[in-house]
Every structure is written in structure tokens, then in C-alpha cells.
């Protein structure tokens, strides 16, 4: 399963299948089986609300599915900086990430702290990485409402590896198994939540055009809006090579 939080807007898709008396695991398997695009090209605007300030960031993103269910994503910031971030997501092992500074210097991010903020937003590096369905234990907590929709509430606890969050509570829309909300718990406290809005079908793929990651204490949030999106466009593999960053 790829419950990619930030990138769910462009790549996470879930199929709608109705069924009865499902377990938490079964619900997530259905969600994981939703159609995904082979490639995605998008441009997005990120508004970060912190204190009295709103920081606006604009970026373009290219994503492509490779063999063995691995993804490669290139995020190129347009403003306020020209940083580029290339991520190679691997199944069952740590992601590789490279960074290109505005000055052209390239650095590999070997062990970025997964619990740290990504470009000053409320998304953490952990939220950018891929999550395998088997990495978690699931428990159906019951029914619940999120973003005005009837949902299954599923608790997910990571079994091994670095645990940035103690647990996640996923709100899976009953109508189509699309994850519309995620509650993140850290240090035994409700820490933050992600909500997906404007969920549209693009080429048969469920896609949220807007998402908000907000702190539970109300001290800040990051809004993400997709301005432009295209699925399954042809992309060269070399676009995602480290050398292409130069």
C-alpha cells in the first residue's frame, strides 16, 4: 500500500468495492488496490500558515512508477527558492533523496530526520516517503465522519523501523475506500491531521485537488492546492536520474 500523504494528491488512488464485515486490514487492502497512474505531472501551490505569517511556495512535480512498485519523484521549487528534490522510493528499504541547491550544488540526503519539517511546512520527511501496507498492523475502530463523508476509522500502528508517529487513524471513505483524512499521533498525543478535499476522478483515478495538513493544537497548517495536473504523460526515465539535477 502506498498511503503517501503529501503525494496522495497526485498518486494515491483507491478503488471502490462494497463489502460487509471487513477487518481493518481488509479495508486498507481495498484502499491500496485503487488505481494509480503510471506518471503524474503537476504544479502546486503550498501556503504555510505559521504565527502571523503565510509563506507561499510554488513547485512543479513529476512522478513516475518504475519496476518493483518503486516510484521516482522530482519536486522542483519555483519560488521562493529554486531547490530541487529527487526521491527514489523503494519497497522495503529507505528512500534515496538528492537535493539540488539554487546554486547548483547537489547533496545526497542520507539520513534526514524523518520527523523533521519539509521546507518549513507541516509535512515531515516521513510524510513524503512511501508506506508499505505490510509495515502496519490495522484495527477497525468503527465508523466515523470526516470531511462530511461516512468513513471507516482504521487504526494503523507501525510494526518496525523508525517510528515518527505512535499511530495513525485513517478515515477511509465508505463509498470508494479513498482515504479522506489521517490523524497523526506523536508521543501519545494527537499531533496533526491531514484532510483531502475536492476529490475528483481524473482518468479514472481519484485525486484530491486540495489538502490541508493542520496541527492538532490549531497553531498552524499547510494548504496544498493543485493548479495543473496531467496523468500518464510520457516521461523519460533519465528525467529522474541524479545527473539530470545539474
Amino acid at each position: 500500500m502506498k498511503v503517501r500523504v503529501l503525494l496522495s494528491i497526485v498518486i494515491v488512488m483507491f478503488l471502490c468495492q462494497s463489502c460487509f464485515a471487513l477487518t481493518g486490514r481488509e479495508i486498507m487492502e481495498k484502499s491500496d488496490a485503487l488505481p494509480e497512474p503510471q506518471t503524474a505531472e503537476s504544479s502546486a501551490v503550498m501556503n504555510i500558515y505559521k504565527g502571523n505569517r503565510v509563506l507561499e511556495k510554488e513547485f512543479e512535480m513529476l512522478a513516475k512508477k518504475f519496476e518493483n512498485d518503486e516510484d521516482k519523484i522530482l519536486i522542483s521549487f519555483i519560488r521562493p527558492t529554486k531547490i530541487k528534490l529527487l526521491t527514489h522510493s523503494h519497497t522495503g528499504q529507505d528512500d534515496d533523496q538528492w537535493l539540488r541547491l539554487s546554486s547548483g550544488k547537489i547533496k545526497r540526503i542520507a539520513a534526514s530526520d524523518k520527523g523533521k519539517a519539509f521546507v518549513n511546512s507541516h509535512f515531515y520527511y516521513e510524510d513524503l516517503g512511501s508506506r508499505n501496507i505490510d509495515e502496519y498492523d490495522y484495527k477497525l475502530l468503527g465508523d466515523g465522519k470526516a470531511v462530511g463523508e461516512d468513513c471507516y476509522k482504521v487504526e494503523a500502528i507501525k510494526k518496525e523501523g523508525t517510528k515518527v508517529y505512535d499511530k495513525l487513524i485513517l478515515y477511509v471513505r465508505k463509498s470508494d475506500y479513498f482515504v479522506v483524512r489521517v490523524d497523526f499521533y506523536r508521543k501519545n498525543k494527537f499531533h496533526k491531521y491531514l484532510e483531502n478535499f475536492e476529490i475528483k476522478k481524473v482518468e479514472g483515478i481519484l485525486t484530491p485537488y486540495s489538502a490541508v495538513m493542520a496541527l492538532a493544537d490549531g497553531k498552524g497548517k499547510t494548504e496544498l492546492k493543485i493548479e495543473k495536473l496531467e496523468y500518464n504523460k510520457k516521461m523519460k526515465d533519465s528525467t529522474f536520474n541524479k545527473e539530470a539535477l545539474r
Partner: protein
Amino acid sequence: MNRYIDFALKRPILVLCILAIVTLILSPGMMKLEFDNSIDVFMPRNDEEYLYYNKVKEVYGDNGRFIIISVSDKNLWSPGTLRKMDELIRDLEEYKEYDEKKESLRLLKLDSLIAGGSLPYDAFILSFHDDPSFQRLLRRKTEVIFGNVEKLSRWKLKKLKKEISRSNDFKKQELIDEIIAPLTAQDITGKDDVLVIFDLVDVGDDGERILPTTAAEMTAFRKKLERNPAFEMGLYSRDKKTGEITDFGIIIKLENMEDQDPIARELFGIINSHGSLDMVTSGIPIVNIWAIDYMHNDLYVLVPIIMLVVMVIFYFNFRSLRGVILPTATLGLAELWLLGLMGYSGFRITSLALTLPPLIIAVGSSYSIHILNQYYADFTSITEVGKHEGLRRSMSHISLTVLLAGITTFIAFMTLATSQVTAIKEWGIASAIGVMFAVFISSSLIPAALSLLPHTMPRLLLRKDKTLRTTIVDRIIQLMTKGAVLHHRKVIVVLIILMTFSIAGLFRLKVETVFLYYFKENGPVREAIHIIGEKFGGGDNFVIQIDSGEVDGATTPKFLTAIENLREWLLLTENRDLNIGRTDSFSDFIKTMHLAMNNDDLSFYKIPETKTDIIDYLELYAGDDDDGNGRFDEFEPFVDENYQSCNILARLYRKKDFRVGTTEISQIKEKIIDHLTMNLPRDYSFCVTGFPTMEVKLVYYVVKGQLQSLLLSLIVVGIIVMLLFSLLKAGVIALIPMSVAVILNFGIMGWLGINLDMATSIIAAITIGIGVDDTIHFLNNFRHLRTRGLSIDETISGTLAVSGKAILFTSLALILGFSVFTVSNFRPVILFGLLMAMTMIATTIGALLVLPTIIKATNIDLATPEKKSLLYRHLNLGKIFGLDETDSSGE
């Protein structure tokens, strides 16, 4: 007053019962007394600089008040030392982030153990073997409450749980902002083109630190620590000669709060419980703990000892049990009433308010001695007219004078209530109330008790022929009388010389409000400050704020270079007189990022050349932002939310061999301001603030404010005396002895190099309190005798024989009593004791020699004029108090 005295004499038991009931009601209030040594109680809320300092604290946090620990174990690089340090940090970290689940489980387990009844101590501790931090907390608290115990009864366990819950309350508040230590620090490296954010000590998946144990791991840890130049004198310190790392530094930054004392005490308790680690602890919260403890000790230990000494002197004066018990009871009750009332009404004991109990002892002694002395002076006439009538006449006369003296002192002290400074205002109100308590108690308790006791003269005061013994006090009075009557010209000449000498001394008087110098030079507080200064550059800092004038202006190379230039200048050898031991700023983070982005090449430990680089670094910094205000937590002390202005924290190194007092701090500030005015780019603005500058500001508000109020008090006293006697001359004359005493006092301080500080400046107010008392007693008695047709010489001699004796008794009692203060740990209190003794001598000379000399020399007649001006007719205080023509002393 006469009616009241009559009532006290007729219903003595009722009066004593009322006094006892009021005491029972008020004294428990003492338990509610709180000590406060924060700078806020000394600062007027509308002072611009103080408001700015608070604003800076709101934006950047409280960067001036932190706890700093220097760990200097012999085996610094051993796994044992690191383990001990880790244990200390773990214990502290529980107050940084509250783990509700963990704490609830702990309390539940504790409850189940309590339910099981008493337990052997070892077994009790062992039951928490899987929770070492909690075991340490239990050990610490058990030791504090019960000392060494072998068994914990159910009652003890319950008490212990109460204490643990108290600690839990602290933890819930998460009052620690940050713990900066080699074991908790992070760094960033970009060697071999790999950007790695790393912990200096690895952290496992379970969040536990993995401490280095092998030699190779220790070397790796050492290398990580030494790699970043910003860590030196922050996370570690080197021996200046050998270059070896000798100390680790731990900084505990507290959240911005007004009263840090409770949490600072809890943390200091934790630090002290890790005694196996060789540590020195300092920082403003710790210094404040010492100060408050010393104040506590002085109040609860030294004040009773003073009372004991005063009691001994009372005995030597009156040679009778009643001569000891009655004045002592007056003092005791007045203290209990005042401190109790202060406790109930939320007045806090500040270093200024610490002088209140001695003040009450001073004025209370004076009042009760005057009353008792009058009783013995009138002993024969009381015998002649009958006990009740005799006591009524004698007590009415003296109580009236005591009331007048009390009211004048009350008004003089109440003038301080106009002060903008909370501490001075509260001191003024409390001292005024205390004075009135002393007046009321002395004029109720003593007459009531005398009415109940048999009318006898102590045998020890009588000679074999049943006449009064001539004591040393009598001889001194005779000497004074002789001086005033026969040698008044010589006395005036000596007085003029003395005043010239004192005024010259006034110019040498230095004002000092730097708290450090309140402690003894070789005491633990100053030692710790010197060690921390030597190793980590200081325990408190100046805050130099530079404003770029535009949002994000602090992220430009031009701005950051200006910051770096200033930091460099502050630490130049030629600027050693600035006494800056270390600086910290936002630029350190940018330099560290630049170093990392350039393969850790040390030549890149500098400000990048382009703004783009700086913005990139800020995007990538990836720090925590727990309060969600848009700045990473590490940046908070240094940059505002808009990245417009930056703080440079410049630690003040208070050297052992170089005094950095109020004057020096002002000079340092001025030099920094001059440099910035000359060198900072024109489009930037700046401000220099911080704890040291607030200490300097105290000079203005406490000492100067105090002296201004003193002047006002003098004027008020002069006016009251003038209205009481319906004579301008009386007001002027009344001021002379008090002014002489104050000038003499300050002059001697100037010559002896005693600084004017918060405690010593209050002496002036006490001088007035005592001086007014003595003067009014003298003037009232003088006029009383004068109206009986005696000559000036006879009047002076007669007045001195009665009032003079009481004044001298009071002075002797207080001189010896206040000498107890010389054993205090607090320098100002020691000096306060010495100066109080000096003040007693000065006011005594003022009242017994200067006042009669002036009267003799000027031939002033204090008789009420037959034709009064309009002012005196409408404001006839003498008549209101029964002092005017209607005076009914009966003598």
C-alpha cells in the same frame, strides 16, 4: 488618646485579650509569605526600557535567565561520566516534555503500593527497577522529606505521593524550553556530498540515546563535538593552556515566566541529587535561589536572634522582668501582625522588604522604651497620686507623643507609596502599617499590663539609699547636656567639620545594584559564577538587537555580515574591557549550514555570499517548530518571526579580578552603543538590552527613587512638625538632626567604600523613622517643660533627662541587636547591620546633641504663638492631637 488609655487601664484584660485574638488571627498569614527576587518587582510597569525588555522576551524567549552547568569530571571521556550525565539529562527532560501515559502509570503503581501498606525502603525502590528516572525521583524526594529511612509506613508513602504529584504538576506545565548539552545536540555535515543531519550521540528507534562505550566510539563522539566551531564554550570548554577539553556544558533554558523560583528549585534539587558528577551550577535562576534562601535565613533565623539580643539589653536597661517582657512582646506582636497581614494580602518579601522586620524592631523598641521609661520616670508621682490616676496621667502624656511620632513616621513612609516601583510602594505601605501597629500595641499592651502588675521599682535600679542609680546612660546624657548648654559653639564647629567631611564622602559614594556583589567574595555563589564565566563565557547576557527594517531583511549577507562584524568586535583583545565572554547569534546556524554544504571545509564557516544560498539553507534547515510560530525552536532566541531583526546574545563574563558592577555595565553598554552608532549600516537600527542593563536600571528606580522619596519624606516630616507646633521654626529645627544623621551616614559610607544598594539605601528611610521619633519626643517634652517657666538650659537638661534616656536605651539595644546581621551570608545585610548601628549613633547624636545645641544657639522658643496665622488656625494639628494649649499630661 486619653480616653483610650483610660479604657486600657480600666479594662486591661479585655485589651490584652483583643491583642491576643488579633495576633491569633493575623500570625498564620506569615505562612503564606512568599519571597520574590525577580527584577519585575523593582521595575515600574510603564518604564520604556523595561517594556522593551519584556517585548524582546516575548518575541525571543527569556534568554537572560538560564541554568548553566559545567561538568568537569576527572574522567570526562569515560562511559561512566557520560552515563551519569545522561541520567541527569533524562531526569531534566521529564520536565521538558510531559508523558501523560508514563506518569499516570507511575502514579497508579504508587497507589497500589500505598494500598499494600508499609514497605521496606529498598523493596519499595526496587519495585520501580524498570524505571530508573522515577527511582531517582523517589529517592530524592524521600531523602528530602524523611532523610534516611529503612521503612516507609503507609502515611509516609502517602506523603511521598503528594510530593511526587507536586513534581508531576511541574512536569505537566513543560516549563523547560530547551536542554542544550553534548548528549542532546544535533549537527549537520555535508562531507563527500552527503548531507547528514546527525545527533552527536546516536538515538535508537526507541528514542533512547546510545552512549559511546568503546574507545573508538568515544573518539568518534569527541570528533563530532570538536567539528563545529560553534560548540566551543557552549557544549564544551577547553583548558586555556593545554587545549584539552576539560568540561561539558549543559544549558537549561526555561520558558518565559515571571516567577521562575518554584521550577528552578525543583531542577536545582535534581541537579544536586546527581552529586556523583563533578559539577558547578550557576545562572540567574540559581543565583536567585541562593538569594532567597539567604533572605529566608536572615528573616527567620537572624531576626529572632536580634530580638534575643535586644531583650538582653532591655534587661540591662530596666533590670526587671516586665522591662524585658513588655517591650519584647510589643516587638514580637508588631512583627507577627505585620508579617501576617503581608502574607494574607499577598505582599511579597523582596530584598527590600527584608528590612521591614528590623525596622519594626527599631521603631517598636523606641516606642515601648519611651513608654516604659516614662513609667519609671514618673514612678514617684504615680505613687503619690495613686496607681490608676498616676498611670493615666503618665501613659496619656507619653502615648500621645508616641502617637504623634508614629503618625509622622507613618506619613513619611506613606510618601513612598507614590513610587512607581512595586517593591518600594509595598515597602512604604507595609512600613507605615507596621509603624502604626507598633504604636497601637505599645500604647495598649504596656499600659494594660502595668495596670495589672504591682507598682514597684526594680531593686536593681535603686541604690542602697533607695534613690535611682547613676548609670552610664545618665553619664552620657550629662555629657550631652553639658555639650549643648555650655559648649554649643564648639559643638557647632565640630558639626560643620563633620558635615563638610560627610559631604565630601557623599561624592565618593558609589551606587551598586548588581546582584552578584550582594554575595560574599569567596562564597559558593560568586565562585560558581566565576567558574562558569571562565569556562563558558558567563551566566547571563546582554541582548543586542539589530533591526534590518524590512521583512526577511535578516536573511541577507549584508545583514548577517554586520552581525558577524559586531560579534568579532565584541571579542577583540583590545575590547577586553567589554567583558564579553562569548556571543551567540542566528548567523551561527547559517555558517554551520554553509560549512556543511561545502563539504565541511572550515574556510566556509562564514556567511554565504548570496541571499539565495541563505534562503536555501533556511528551507532545508528542518528544525522543530513546537510552538508553530514560523521559526525553528533553535532560532527563537535569535531571530523574530518575520526574519526582520536579530538578537546577539553577548555573555557577560564577571571576572574574579575585575569588577563588573553597575558603573562598568553602563560603560560597556555605552561603548557598544557608540560602536554601533558609528559602524552599523545606516538603514539598520539597534537596541541594547538584557538582564545586566535591567540591573543598571534598578539603580535609577530603587536607589535614586528611594532617595527622592527620602527628600519628600523629610519635607513632609518638616511640614507636620511645623503644623503640630504651629511654628515654622519647629519644622525647620526638626529636619536638622535627621538631615545631619542621613548626611553623616552616607558620608561615612562614601569614605568606607560601602556601596549604595537596595538594602543600604533604605537605611535613610529608617533614619527618618527613628529620627522623627527622637525629635518629636525631644521637642514635645522641651516645649512642655518650657511652658512651665524653666530657662532654656534647664529645659534642655530636663528634656534630656527623660527623653534622652529613652533615646539612648533604644539606640544601645538596637546597635547591639543589629550587629547580629554581620553573620549573614548576604553582603548588603551585613552592611545593613553595620549601618543600622551607625544610624543609631547618628540619630542619637542628632537628637541629644545637635537638636539641643541648635535650640541653645538660636534661642528658639517653641511656645505656641498667641496670634496664629490663618494656616495654623485651619490646620491646627496640635489641637487635634491635644498637644496645643490643651495638653493634659498632668505633670
